[in-house]
């Protein structure tokens, strides 16, 4: 009987002490940083929604690494005996992750906003640049390489605009950078070429003045060809009487240097012959005294300097002729007018009429502002 009582007592003691031990174990067991981990996770998710993985990549990936480290440490600690667990590192990593994720989110929002503004400005700038290029260089004989680069630049700009509209700012930025490089480099190259071309403007200005004065003094006709604007002006008594569209040699930029260079010469010339009928294949033609003494001198000095090979020949047979109106610079160096305009001009000019060919009658500043 006594033994029975002893067993009951032992059982009761065990039954009471077991939950107590368990409760004590729970009470004094180190607790994991659940709140900190949840906060880190939420901050990380929020940063992701703000595209921090794209626009604040470094901070975001650091935040992720810290979060993963917190999880790994948590799992590691869970494997240890209840009392020996230490979640300090877990809490530390969670805190670091939340901090970095918060920075990444904020950074992403501000980066996106700045990038968006910056991209819009660049898109506007490049569109303006394209307008300038179209305005200045549509008929300017740029090299095919430059034309290709401008065309590729335009295409990249369109791709950038599409990415921008979709909110893909990084992609847009990459395209803009490539487009900007192609367009600005091409523009600078073309602009420097143009600037170089206009270096002789003061000489041209002088020739134009002389030609108009001659027309006034002699009460006669004189002709001025403006290569840049592709115009043929006919003056009578110093006043402009006619204005025609002119077509030039394919490489009209710069003075004619050598036979076959397809350049239209610059200088003050005179009509030496009026040709019509079967004697010309260009309807009617006015032969000029190219090369004049100045051209011959220039050619000789180029040969002497070695800038032209000794075998080079000076060009000749430069005319104002018909068959124009093609809308393109196609001649071998001559000036082409339409047959109708040729009829007008052919009738009023004579052998000895002054024909001045200049790069431009307007200075570069005015050409750019036009």
């Amino acid at each position, binding site marked *: 009987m006594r033994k029975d009582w002893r067993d009951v007592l032992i059982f009761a003691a065990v039954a009471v002490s077991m939950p107590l031990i368990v409760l004590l*174990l729970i009470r004094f067991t180190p607790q994991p940083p659940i709140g900190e981990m949840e906060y880190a*996770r939420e901050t990380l998710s929020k940063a992701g929604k703000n595209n921090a993985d794209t626009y604040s990549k470094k901070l975001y990936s650091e935040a992720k690494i810290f979060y993963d480290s917190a999880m790994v440490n948590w799992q590691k600690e869970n494997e240890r005996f209840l009392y020996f667990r230490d979640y300090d590192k877990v809490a530390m990593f969670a805190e670091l992750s939340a901090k970095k994720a918060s920075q990444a989110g904020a950074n992403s929002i501000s980066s996106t906003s700045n990038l968006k503004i910056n991209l819009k400005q660049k898109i506007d700038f490049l569109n303006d640049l394209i307008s300038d290029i179209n305005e200045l260089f549509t008929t300017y004989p740029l090299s095919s390489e430059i034309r290709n680069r*401008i065309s590729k630049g335009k295409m990249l700009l369109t791709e950038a605009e599409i990415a921008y509209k979709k909110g*893909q700012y990084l992609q847009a930025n990459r395209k803009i950078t490539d487009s900007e490089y192609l367009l600005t480099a091409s523009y600078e190259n073309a602009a420097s070429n143009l600037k170089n071309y206009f270096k002789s403007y003061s000489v041209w200005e002088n020739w134009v003045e002389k030609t108009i004065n001659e027309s006034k003094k002699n009460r006669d006709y004189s002709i001025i060809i403006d290569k840049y604007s592709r115009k043929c002006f006919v003056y009578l008594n110093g006043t402009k009487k006619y204005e025609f569209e002119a077509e030039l040699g394919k490489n009209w930029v710069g003075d004619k240097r050598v036979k076959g260079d397809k350049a239209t010469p610059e200088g003050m010339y005179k009509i030496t012959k009026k040709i019509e009928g079967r004697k010309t294949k260009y309807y009617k033609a006015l032969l000029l005294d190219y090369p004049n003494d100045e051209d011959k001198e220039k050619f000789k000095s180029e040969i002497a300097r070695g800038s032209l090979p000794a075998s080079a020949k000076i060009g000749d047979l430069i005319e104002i002729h018909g068959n124009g109106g093609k*809308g393109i610079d196609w001649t071998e160096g001559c000036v082409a007018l339409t047959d109708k305009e040729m009829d007008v001009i052919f009738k009023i000019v004579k052998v000895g009429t002054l024909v001045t060919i200049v790069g431009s009658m307007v200075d570069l500043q005015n050409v750019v502002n036009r």
Partner: protein
Amino acid sequence: MKNKVLMGLATIVMVAVLSGCGKKPQVEIDATNAAIEAAKTAEAAVYVPAEFAAVQDSMNAINADIAVQESKLFKNFKTAKAKLATTLTLANQVAANAAVKKEEVKKEVETLMTEIKTVLEENKTLMKKAPRGKEGAAVLEQIKTEMATIEGSVVEAQGLYDSGTYMDALNKVKAAKERAVGINTELKEAIAKVKGKKK
């Protein structure tokens, strides 16, 4: 003797209670992770990024829940199991949605490719009719260069399409079409202008 048997039974019941629902749902975890991986392979991050991020967020929360339970003396993975089942379904759905979206983008690229080829052909015909008056021929020369660039861009887009990067191909072909249509409009306007003048 009777008491000893009772004690033994009580111990077994206690152990059973303590360990009941206490096993980590590894099979479910592996299955859900595999489903997420499959969604990733289906390029869910590219085609349905928001949905994919939601699945990843869910999985992160579940992993934390599991870690919480593993920290406890009395583990209970019931909630985690239920969440895993939901996330598994969601991941499968996201993978399916990504495949649908990818197919849509693919079809859009194919349509645009066909359309742009038609526009380019039309542009070539229009070029022959385009006016060559003042600056006309020079502009046409410029258009020719632009057409060559557009054709190059279409080839690049085709390459992207062939390699399965439909989203990049879409952006490229869209830009090419925009430029080709721009040229088409420019040419049509120039032709109409000349026709108007002739009347």
